[in-house]
């Protein structure tokens, strides 16, 4: 619980009294309830507030408990419907942090209410940057790589592993995000970033992601003979020559060509059409 306000250079810094992650029974119950309610964050997704209503809905029962006066509760609820958008898995961290600030606000008449929204605005962006990169860009790729690899033969383990690999970290981040956000709040971000642990984790995850994409490029881009062609003899030799040069040469080249084009800011839709034309061309020529 945050129960100390230090005013430094006109800015409010929230400092936690103790450094341990202690939650009493009531707080545990609150976090558990928050964990359930944070799931439908995007339920009423819209253009003007985005996840705003979902955010307020998640916090609603706790706010009702925190604020004994009905007008304060309603005001808090309204305040929390402000524009909000971040990676869904990162939202619970901000929700926990918000709850601790709302608690402070209820207990302390001098607390600057506007700082609650200011913190939300300040955090939702960067956490989205982190969350999107990690969850969509890396974790999902790893999970999909394993999942797809197992699924190509019709193995049910494919979709199951896909869901497990993604959701174990997903659920852990959500639950402990709420716990840490509530207990540590802003201080956690400062210490985590200073230690550089997050960068190390991101780099490691990227390494894993790259290896998986490399592996998938070798096994899941099909460029071997599919249909028997008329010029039987000539085609078989071609595949052998390619293999002597570098196994999986053509898939690698295709991936790298697409990659280079994307880097040169070519519109992906053109590349898509190009691949379609390439595929058709090869089929017509009897190469594939």
């Amino acid at each position: 619980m945050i129960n100390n306000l230090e005013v430094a250079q006109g800015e409010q810094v929230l400092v936690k009294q103790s450094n341990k992650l202690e939650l009493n029974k009531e707080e545990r119950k609150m976090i558990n309830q928050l964990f359930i309610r944070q799931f439908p964050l995007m339920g009423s997704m819209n253009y003007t507030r985005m996840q705003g209503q979902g955010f307020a809905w998640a916090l609603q029962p706790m706010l009702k408990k925190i604020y004994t006066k009905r007008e304060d509760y309603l005001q808090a609820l309204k305040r929390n419907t402000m524009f909000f958008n971040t990676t869904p898995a990162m939202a619970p961290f901000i929700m926990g942090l918000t709850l601790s600030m709302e608690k402070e606000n209820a207990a302390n008449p001098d607390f600057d209410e506007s700082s609650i929204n200011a913190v939300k605005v300040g955090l939702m962006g960067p956490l989205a940057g982190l969350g999107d990169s990690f969850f969509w860009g890396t974790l999902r790729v790893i999970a999909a790589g394993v999942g797809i690899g197992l699924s190509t033969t019709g193995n049910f383990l494919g979709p199951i592993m896909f869901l497990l690999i993604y959701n174990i970290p997903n659920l852990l981040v959500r639950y402990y995000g709420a716990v840490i956000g509530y207990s540590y709040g802003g201080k956690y971000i400062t210490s985590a970033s200073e230690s550089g642990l997050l960068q190390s984790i991101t780099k490691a995850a990227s390494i894993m992601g790259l290896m998986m994409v490399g592996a998938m490029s070798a096994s899941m881009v099909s460029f071997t003979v599919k249909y028997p062609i008329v010029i039987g003899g000539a085609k078989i030799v071609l595949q052998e020559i390619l293999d002597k040069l570098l196994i999986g040469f053509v898939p690698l080249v295709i991936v790298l060509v697409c990659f280079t084009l994307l880097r040169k800011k070519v519109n992906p839709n053109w590349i898509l059409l190009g691949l379609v034309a390439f595929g058709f061309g090869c089929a017509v020529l009897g190469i594939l």
Partner: protein
Amino acid sequence: MEVVILLLKKQRGGDIMNIEALLIALVMYFAKFCDHGLGQPMVERPLVLATLVGLVLGHPTEGVMLGATLELIFLGTITIGGSYPADVITGSILASSFVLLLGKGPEVAVTLAVPISMLAVFVYNIIKLVYTAAVERFDIYLEAGRDQAFCNLQVFLTLFKPFVYSVLTYFAITLGTSVIEAVVKSIPPVVMQGLGATAGVLPALGFAILLKTLWNANIAAFFFIGFALVAYLKLPIMGVALFAGAIAVHSCYSDYNLKKLIASTAGVAKSAAPADDKEVFFND
């Protein structure tokens, strides 16, 4: 009620088609609910959805394999920050449904999924506009102090969106299957071959998109390591994952320990003068 049943029976395919359409509509509800109601747990991705469609239509194994194919095509399509470049859910569910109902191959699934996913975005945009209008309602409730009404509206909207898609899916399946069948039948075999070849190379674009986001000159080598492991050592994908995981964990530890080492040796200097963003901007 009897009129409705009569109308349903009149549709091509009769009762069996309707039950299957209903089941697929249920899969759609589940998928769309997971998307915004459960914060995107990846259930709403082609790999899982095609499997589910396969299960309800009685072709589980084909469903799984279709899921793999479609997931590869849509690997680079991501829906973050409320942006919806393509409706992967609708594309995957409808495409795999048509393919399994008509007994066609994966290249047909790919051919169907891509345009369907793009068209379905219109539906999403319309829904989002309606939901944006609902914001006013939310505000009105709060102004009047009706917090329970506020909560009810949130729940309602969460449960309603998937329902809209379910209804559309039901009609898409019951009315669309015969249309799709006719279209597919009219495709000449050469074109089919072309589609098959295309379906084989399209994943390359998805991989390239992912590469673009993950690429970093320092660690680029690992892409080629992963590639070589499969191309030459013929390692199964699970093996690569274990390999990759081990390397990643090791990298994390050594990177972090190195950072701690640097921090401790530079400790005195660092605490004396915190790095000024303006000064270090030009340092590498």
